[in-house]
């Protein structure tokens, strides 16, 4: 083969490859915006959840760390200070008027003050917080064992999920409040707590005061901050976007174990 033939062929190949990859890329982006393709991709989430549950037990514990592993500061992500009048009012009073409302599919709906929550059995744990973005921070949390709270309100047999409704609006117009959900397995997990202390001090507003959820085997967005109300439900299909959480409604996985 002589060079006269070779060079145009190489150039042709390179151009074809370039054009084909640009086309493939545009195709990927177009697929991402269809109705059906993300649903195909989302099938992997069910596999992720099934595989994760298959290899671990209900009580397998997230890693706990030593004081020497503590991060110098615990990063505040998402909302740092909910600007609603309601939240600012209870915050101004050091959350003395805060009442956590627990209802839904329970035998004994109740309202808990911070003192009530502190009176329930607590757990202290040094754990690593893994954000979906990729960063990790290690902190010491103390809070009400969620299983103790459940024992107080007595879930009905039909309850399958626990909804957490938060004080922080996610939209600029003050609507779209943050919310999250976990299943009963996570709700009863020993490390699932409603944290009121961070690193031996009161939980700061930037990190979710007066209480935030810790659900240690899942990514950060599951750990709802500024929890105002809890509801036990059989399904969350008709709540907000129907996907079980604020970020889930934006396309993030409900199973945030990976």
């Amino acid at each position, binding site marked *: 083969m002589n060079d006269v033939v070779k060079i145009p062929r190489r150039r042709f190949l390179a151009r074809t490859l370039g054009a084909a990859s640009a086309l493939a890329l545009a195709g990927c*982006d177009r697929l991402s915006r269809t109705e059906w393709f993300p649903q195909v991709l989302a099938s992997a989430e069910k596999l992720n959840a099934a595989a994760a549950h298959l290899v671990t037990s209900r009580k397998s514990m997230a*890693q706990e760390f030593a004081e020497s*592993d503590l991060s110098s500061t615990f990063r505040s992500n998402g909302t740092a200070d909910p600007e609603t009048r309601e939240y600012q009012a209870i915050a101004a009073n050091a959350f003395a008027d805060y009442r956590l409302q627990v209802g839904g599919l329970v035998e004994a709906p109740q309202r808990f003050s911070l003192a009530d929550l502190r009176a329930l059995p607590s757990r202290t744990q040094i754990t690593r917080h893994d954000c979906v973005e990729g960063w990790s921070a290690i902190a010491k949390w103390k809070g009400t064992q969620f299983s103790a709270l459940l024992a107080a309100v007595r879930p009905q047999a039909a309850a399958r999920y626990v909804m957490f409704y938060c004080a922080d609006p996610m939209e600029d117009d003050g609507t779209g409040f943050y919310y999250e959900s976990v299943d009963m397995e996570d709700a009863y997990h020993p490390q699932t707590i409603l944290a009121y202390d961070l690193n031996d001090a009161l939980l700061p507003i930037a990190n979710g005061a007066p209480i935030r959820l810790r659900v240690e085997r899942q990514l950060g967005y599951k750990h709802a901050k500024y929890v105002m109300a809890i509801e036990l439900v059989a399904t969350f299909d008709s709540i907000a976007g129907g996907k079980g959480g604020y970020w889930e409604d934006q396309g993030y996985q409900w199973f945030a174990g990976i």
Partner: protein
Amino acid sequence: MPQALVSTPGDADYLYYRHTLPVRVMHWINVVALTILLMSGLQIFNAYPELHWGKSSYNGTPPLLEISARAGANGQMIGYTRILGREFDTTGVLGASRGADGTVVCAAFPSWATVPGTQWLAMARAWHFFFAWIIVINGLAFLAYAIFSRHLARDLAPTRSDLRSIGQSLKEHLRFRHPTGEEAKRYNVLQKLAYVVVIFGLLPLAVLMGFAMSPWLNSLLTGWVDLVGGRQSARTLHFIVAWLLVAFVLIHVFQVIVTGFWNNLRSMLTGRYRVQAEARHE
């Protein structure tokens, strides 16, 4: 490589059945899956464009790698990459680059290198996990096939005489002299070692470091992630392994081109590889 011949060796060129159908199918599945995994992985990296060593990202030490952007004196965005404390201006590619519509976007990896092309972590994760399952299932299927068809023992495992000829093979590769004729029907020792390292080293390591980033799988066995230095180390290793795989692919494609692009491509599409007659008389 099955021994079945398309035609018998003689003085003329002949087609040799080099790659079986399962190997060809699994190869091309890998091409698609690895490409998507890399590009969606880069989009996931863009959500937190730093790499750390240790259990957390806030342990008082600076990142090993950081890709970011800052405004220059004239307001233009300057993209920079800081590796082990040394900063490089990477405007145009890393940190700040032009998006599909031509506007400057501040993103670690540029639009043309990521899936999706614009900042969209949730969608990148969806792509990444879907194709992670594809490559794991494909890998397990390949492993089963390679063992039971003896592809592994016959074609991939280096023999003792292979290993003795590493030096010789290295010299030949560096001079771009590659086995031809009958010798080209089998993998050479460097080729075998490259495939074995990728199949049994890099790919399983990438999967394992993926598992190490999962908070749920961290609970599998207390402290197992510390064996590789912690979750942020696992993330760093996952990133490094991804680029080692890219390096492998670049060398692989280079070798494919210099040893007869169309012949190699045909053998991975139809299975048939042309063995040159004259070469056998050398």
